[in-house]
């Protein structure tokens, strides 16, 4: 597995994640726990505690960080595509907030249904890529299930490299094609 984060971007990302107090799906229980109040004397905040949205334009968007770039994820159900690193089926940290928004919506709207469409880039053999892309949709499915979404609201289909989003053959095209699309088949937000 090659290194994909440049140091500057890693720093920015860490700041974003801290600001959003996001945690990975695997230890999600901590996210629901309110921070313990400290017993020092209350301090009046100097500034209102608005989340610091990073100026993503300052983070160079490269093929290597594309999958985890904050500009791809707005934290709402408006975002319908989750990107993946090369040869990886790990849900990117930058997508957690977006996926939580989908999970919340699905839990609050039991009539809503999503189809998770897994895709791979064109490198490698076609049927093996179908299998790889299934692992990606299954990773997103698992994330949503851990958030409490019912399995009856999720449907998974794997296309491998058969339906590229970008038709070119550059590293950036491949980054755009390694993805899971979240398509509402009922109860679209």
């Amino acid at each position: 597995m090659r290194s994909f984060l440049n140091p500057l971007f890693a720093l920015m990302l860490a700041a974003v994640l801290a600001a959003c107090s996001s945690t990975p799906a695997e230890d999600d229980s901590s996210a629901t726990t309110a921070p313990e109040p400290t017993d020092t004397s209350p301090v009046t905040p100097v500034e209102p505690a608005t989340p610091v949205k990073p100026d993503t334009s300052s983070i160079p968007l490269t093929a290597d960080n594309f999958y985890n770039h904050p500009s791809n994820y707005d934290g709402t159900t408006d975002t319908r595509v989750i990107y993946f690193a090369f040869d990886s089926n790990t849900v990117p940290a930058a997508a957690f907030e977006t996926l939580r928004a989908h999970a919340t919506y699905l839990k609050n709207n039991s009539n809503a249904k999503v189809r998770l469409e897994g895709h791979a880039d064109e490198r490698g053999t076609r049927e093996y890529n179908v299998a790889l892309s299934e692992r990606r949709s299954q990773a997103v499915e698992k994330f949503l299930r851990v958030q409490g979404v019912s399995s009856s609201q999720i449907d998974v289909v794997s296309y491998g490299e058969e339906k590229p989003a970008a038709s070119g053959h550059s590293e950036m095209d491949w980054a755009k094609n390694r993805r899971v699309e979240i398509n509402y088949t009922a109860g679209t937000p």
Partner: protein
Amino acid sequence: MKLMKHRSTQAFMVILVMLWASAASAELLIRVTEGRVDAVPIAVVPFAGAQGAPEDVSQIVQADLHRSGQFKPLPAEDMLSRPSNESEMIYRDFRVLGMEYVVAGSMKALESGGYEVKYALFDVSRQVKLLEESYRPPASQLRDVAHAISDRIYEQLTGIPGAFSTKILYVTYNRNDGKNPYQLQYADADGHRVTTILRSKEPIMSPTWSPDGRKVAYVSFENQGLPSIYVHELATTQREKVSSFKGINGAPDWSPDGQKLALTLSRDGNPEIYMLDLNTKALTRLTQHYGIDTEPRWLPDGKSLVFTSSRSGGPQIYKLNINDKSVRRVSFQGAYNARSDVTPDGRYLVYVHRRNGSFNVGVQDLQRGTFNIVTRTDMDESPSVAPNGSMVIYGTQDGGTGVLQAVSIDGRVKVELPSKEGEVREPAWSPFL
């Protein structure tokens, strides 16, 4: 010989039935990019009486022999004489040009609308006639006769049956066709006479032939974007959906006896190899592993198959014994080996191998244990071996477009089949028809 001609005639009738459905699709063009340096010099003399005929038989024969990479045909303008039969044959005229063999013949239009095609094959150094045949096809079957002649000449001179009368099945993708971008087609092995089997808005994948060449199986996502496996009879265009489980339905491959399909299903949550009995519809699970298991291919003995598995990390080729379900790793070079095919004699495995980020076709000799990369392109996939074991056709990219190429098992002959429009992918070479 009589038997052979009879078989050919049956094949022609089947082809005729299928051709009516074929629109004037783009044919594949063929270019030999690399032939053997020791290719055999041969003169295919333009057949007398070819003018005005719908097909020039001698030209097709010459192109077939050239495309095999094993022969180097003499340009017609260099010929000193142009015999059309044995009595006109002057061996000296070809010996001075370094020719080893000469094909001479004639075409004659018959009252019936058909043609009489005669030819003979001569050995220049021994000054003897090696072959002589005649055919009486209708005009519509002149191409079939030409390929049958090529097959006979090839077998006479190499000892290996020719595969010029075979067909190639493949998927095309045309981004500009908003209605049906995906098509399943087949064509003659020389790229001519394209027939469309299926058009779809959704992907079509992994086409493969039945052992008798009368049916094909493929994966189609036409049902609400979900994958199903179909068995499709070419002559009648009747088809049957044989697999549409939850999850992946992929990578079908026919058993040598034509009774079963090996396939990949993820209905239990993970891609595994299964065997489907096409008569009883009984399903047998063959692999049990949390890794990816896919791309099964039967070995000629019908008792074992090879498949791609990630059980050791990256994809590698494994062999599975169907009786006891034991699995043994076969590929060991490099970190990515996938989608194997096997030669009809079971000696060579052909699969996709990644080296320095480039995907190539590699050939593994199962007897000697050697492994050779035989292509120089870099996005190769879906290798498929000709029924005579001579060539491998595969999909690759040229200028960002999917194209088909063919290479000999020893890597010495390379042939390009550029498409006029859209992408061509996933070639499957037919059995002998």
